[in-house]
Every structure is written in structure tokens, then in C-alpha cells.
């Protein structure tokens, strides 16, 4: 049961992150460059339908990730959701027609490897002797 719940939330975390960033980018491309714009331009951009949809999904992403972390180890969540780096590149290639060079794919691959390696280390190094993330149910 917990395994099933975990898979559902991991999928939700990945989906909302990738699609949220994709919609945000699509919307901001329509809004135009924000570089050097006054703060009001950013607030206005948030009301663009695609940007608003993207930001909403990113809010769901944060809540879903925090929820998942309430029972799952960070060392499980980090590598599983780091597939999001690959999917961001795929989404850019497929939906935004970006040129993803071999170097860029290589870079994404190394980043995923790095995240997986870091996540294989102990979650907490400051507490001794055993760091447990299991919370007590009141």
C-alpha cells in the first residue's frame, strides 16, 4: 500500500515539475524577454494563462514533494525525481523545438549520475549514532 502511494506521489512530483516548467517557459516565450524588466512586468507575466498554469503546477510540485518526504527518504526522492532533468531536456526538444546538442545530453547525464551518487550517502551526518527520519505518529 505504501509502495503504491509512493509510486503515485513520485510520478506526481516528476510530472508537475516537468510540465510546470514547460508551461511556464511556453507562457514566458509569449510574454517576451523579462531580462531587465521592472518588477511589475514579472507580476503581470504571472497572469498570463500558461504562466499561471505553470506556476500552479509548480505549487502542486512543492506540496507533493513535501508530502512524499514525510514518509520517503530524501535519498529515495532525489535520484527518482532527478529523471526530471532528462525529461526537461526531452520536453525542450519535443515541445519547444530546442536544439539539444550531444554536449547538453552528456551534461544532463552527468548531473543525474551526480545526484544518484549523492543520494546514496547517509541522510543526516550530524546526529549520532543513528539518524532516523521516521516520525512518531502522535
Amino acid at each position, binding site marked *: 500500500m505504501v509502495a503504491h502511494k509512493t509510486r503515485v506521489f513520485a510520478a506526481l512530483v516528476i510530472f508537475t515539475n516537468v510540465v510546470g516548467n514547460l508551461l511556464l517557459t511556453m507562457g514566458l516565450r509569449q510574454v517576451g524577454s523579462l531580462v531587465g524588466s521592472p518588477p511589475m512586468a514579472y507580476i503581470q507575466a504571472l497572469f498570463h494563462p500558461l504562466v499561471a498554469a505553470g506556476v500552479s503546477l509548480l505549487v502542486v510540485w512543492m506540496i507533493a514533494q513535501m508530502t512524499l518526504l514525510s514518509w520517503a527518504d530524501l535519498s529515495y526522492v532525489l535520484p527518482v525525481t532527478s529523471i526530471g532533468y532528462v525529461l526537461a531536456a526531452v520536453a525542450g526538444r519535443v515541445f519547444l523545438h530546442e536544439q539539444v546538442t550531444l554536449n547538453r545530453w552528456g551534461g544532463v547525464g552527468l548531473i543525474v549520475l551526480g545526484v544518484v*551518487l549523492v543520494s546514496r550517502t547517509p541522510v543526516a551526518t550530524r546526529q549520532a549514532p543513528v539518524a532516523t527520519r521516521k516520525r512518531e505518529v502522535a
Partner: protein
Amino acid sequence: MKWLLVSVIVAATTLGYLFQVLGMRQHGEIHEFHLGALGVLLASLARNGWIILSVLAMAASFFGFMALVSVADLSFAVPATASSLIFETVLARLVLKEAVGWQRWTGVGLVACGVALLA
């Protein structure tokens, strides 16, 4: 320009996490998760100076990300901002005194190489 924005985002994200950890350590470990306790938790965090600084830094990071994807590829922006992991680890070692073993440093090195490939 793209890398300047990446630097701003990475700096803001790194500081955001650092302040967040300092705030949460000041608060102490959370043990109770029922609705009433979460309300008390939020009220206490909203008055914590580190947490307020952290929220401001995270907001700056998000607006920076908006500016970045308004001009740069998504397939560049997402992996490039992963470089914050490098600075977060260095500060975790230096400021937060966390023990960072060889496996973590190797992982951080791989991320750094990956980001370098994006340039």
C-alpha cells in the same frame, strides 16, 4: 547574459537553502504533524528571521528563473541551475559543519562536470 542569470538564481537558491536550514535548526526538529501542530509551526516559522530571509531568497530565485526561461532554452535552464548543488554542498561543509564524504564530493564533481558541458 544567460550565465549571469544562472549565477543570480544559483546564489539566491543556495542562500535560500542555507537560511532555511539555519531557521529550521533554530526551530528544532518537528515531531508533531497533526493539523493544529502544523498551524503553530507555520505561525512560529513566519516570525523566524532566517525563514523570512529564506523565503525572500527563494522568491528572488524563482523570478530569476522566470527571466532565464524567457530568453534561454528550458533544456539549458533546468540543468544549469542544478549547479546550486555544488555551492550548497560547500556551504553545508563550511557553515553548517556537515560531514561531506568522498562519495558526496564525487557526486558534486559529476554535477559540476555536467554543468560545464552545458557551456
